[in-house]
């Protein structure tokens, strides 16, 4: 077992990842090919240029909960007993491969801690998610690049929150200092060749201290659960908060804690899959029933549900856990500048949303 603290010099990053990716599937943050400003996680390939000095546009949610995946496959085959009939055979998806997410931020990992409740806490367990989660390691980087949309400290996380991570990466002037946080990290540590020196460790300590001093965001979430319910029927409030919403769904798409999905069948010839794909509670059709009835027919009800789900319904269901990681992606990406912090901050009292 190799528990020493390791060091990866900047010019050794790719060769280190080359070695790790011989053993594991590795996902890393890179610039999107056609949209250089869009940073997202992709499977590592030798020679890739990682973007580690910036929060990704899209978090690593898709690594554990892919945007589209088969829940099972089905085949129509001729029946041996009755040759005139086709019988269906079902097949579960393949078991997942061991995977490392390299370079995520504490907010990204916090997102998975929220998803874990939904998929793994029961009463029913999503074995497909649970198996992939079980096989996924997180090499998380201390966060030193917050912007005005970040508010992780307000929702129980922070730039140095190690909860849920397996390895901890601290960038220093010469490279990256890597510590093991869980037993599962030890094989990966063993594949890193260079031990950190005392100077490296001291420099990393300084970076940690500096990051830990940051109080990111000042959103007060005490009793937001009750305050939301008191505001529920205040149509004027929700009109002010979400009147300009376009129902575009980008907030849910980029959100590390949004997980709502649809289930549909895809079939070609005699072979098909029942697939799960990301959906959005912001869409009109999300709750539209075959009868034409829609319990959340307008954008106000849908935005209210999103705020309620994260700051009231979820904590009610899961021991006070807020379903928000404070990453700020919904704020940064909203085309009409809706700020969920404003919607939550003003729930209390009789104030208007924009005061």
């Amino acid at each position, binding site marked *: 077992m190799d528990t020493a603290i390791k060091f990866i010099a900047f010019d050794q990053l790719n060769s280190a990842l080359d070695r790790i990716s011989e053993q594991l599937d590795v996902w890393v943050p890179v610039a999107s090919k056609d949209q250089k400003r869009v940073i997202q996680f992709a499977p590592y390939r030798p020679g890739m240029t990682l973007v580690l000095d910036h929060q990704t546009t899209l978090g690593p949610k898709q690594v554990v909960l892919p945007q589209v995946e088969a*829940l*099972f496959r*089905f085949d*129509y085959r001729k029946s041996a007993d*009755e040759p005139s*009939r086709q*019988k*269906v055979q*079902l097949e*579960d998806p393949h078991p997942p491969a061991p995977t490392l997410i390299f370079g995520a931020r504490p907010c990204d990992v916090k997102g998975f801690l929220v998803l874990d409740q*939904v*998929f793994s806490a029961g*009463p*029913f*367990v*999503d*074995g*497909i998610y649970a198996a992939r989660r079980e096989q996924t390691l997180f090499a998380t980087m201390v966060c030193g690049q917050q912007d005005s949309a970040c508010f992780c400290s307000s929702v129980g996380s922070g730039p140095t929150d190690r909860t849920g991570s397996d390895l901890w990466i601290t960038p220093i002037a010469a490279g990256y200092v890597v510590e093991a946080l869980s037993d599962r990290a030890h094989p990966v540590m063993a594949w890193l060749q260079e031990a950190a020196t005392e100077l490296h460790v001291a420099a990393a300590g300084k970076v940690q201290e500096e990051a830990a001093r940051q109080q990111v965001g000042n959103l007060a979430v005490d009793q937001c659960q009750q305050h939301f*319910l008191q505001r*529920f*029927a205040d149509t004027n409030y929700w009109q002010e908060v979400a009147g300009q919403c376009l129902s575009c769904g980008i907030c849910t798409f980029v959100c590390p804690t949004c*997980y*709502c*999905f*649809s*289930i*549909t*069948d895809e*079939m070609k010839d005699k072979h*098909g899959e*029942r697939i*799960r794909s990301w*959906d959005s*509670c912001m869409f009109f059709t*999300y*709750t*539209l*029933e*075959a*009868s034409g*009835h829609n*319990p*959340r027919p307008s954008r106000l*009800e849908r935005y209210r*549900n999103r705020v*309620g*789900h994260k700051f*009231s*319904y*979820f904590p*009610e*269901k899961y021991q006070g856990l807020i379903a928000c990681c404070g990453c700020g992606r919904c704020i940064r990406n909203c085309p009409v500048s809706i700020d969920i912090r404003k919607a939550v901050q003003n729930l209390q009292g009789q104030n208007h949303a924009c005061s």
Partner: protein
Amino acid sequence: MHAHNPYRPDLASIREVVQETANIKTLRVVFEDESVMHNFSFRPGQVAQLSVFGVGESTFVINSPPTRREYLQFSVMRVGEVTQRIHQLNAGDQVGVRAPLGNGFDYENMQGKDILFIGGGIGMAPLRTLLLFMLDKREDYGDIMVIYGARTPHDLCYQYEFDQWQKANVNLVLTVDNEFPGWKERVGFVPTVLSEESPSPHNRVAIVCGPPIMIKFVLFGLKEQGFEDSQIITTLERRMKCGVGICGRCNIGAKYVCVDGPVFSRQQLSEMVNEL
């Protein structure tokens, strides 16, 4: 249900299809795996996800009672893509079934009480499950009254067993929206017939299912008759996908209709956010 993959259905084959009305068919299905059929247990009011592979899945109440185990029955109204395809199926065809899902009726709390079923259209489907369950344990329950309405006499389901219900001492009150040639029963909307019958709320439970507009006025009528919120039970519908409390679609506030419902008392509904 498959413990490792709650989305994977059990295969079942259709034993019989009954044409109930012009747009409602009843499917009687059995699991292909005999051990699944043998070990299957559920509560009246629990639901299933019924699927046609390659088309999709929809939610239906298990329409036969747990006391009659030779097949599982589903009444399906043709409204959308999946139900359109289900209506084309015949005996011997295969379907997928994920069940049982949801909470079911709290029948233990109804024992020793008089029962009032109020159903409209396809809303009779979940009521029929509980009604037959009670008829199979008739001595556990007091008077049973059924008020069942539909647009026309041709839109009433389960007509072939009305005789049996009545023989089991069920006070069956049938109504249709308008006069119809040959129709000798009541004429008028369900809420109107309810107020004409004015059943006493004393020691009685009312179980209501039907179109939203009917439910709305029936709840109003029951209140007028003196029924307390805790004496009124209804079953809700929501668009569902996973059926196991994960995919997020069917929530009303913090409750999921697929696991916390579909059966709720009016008392419970009054404590939830108003988003019906």
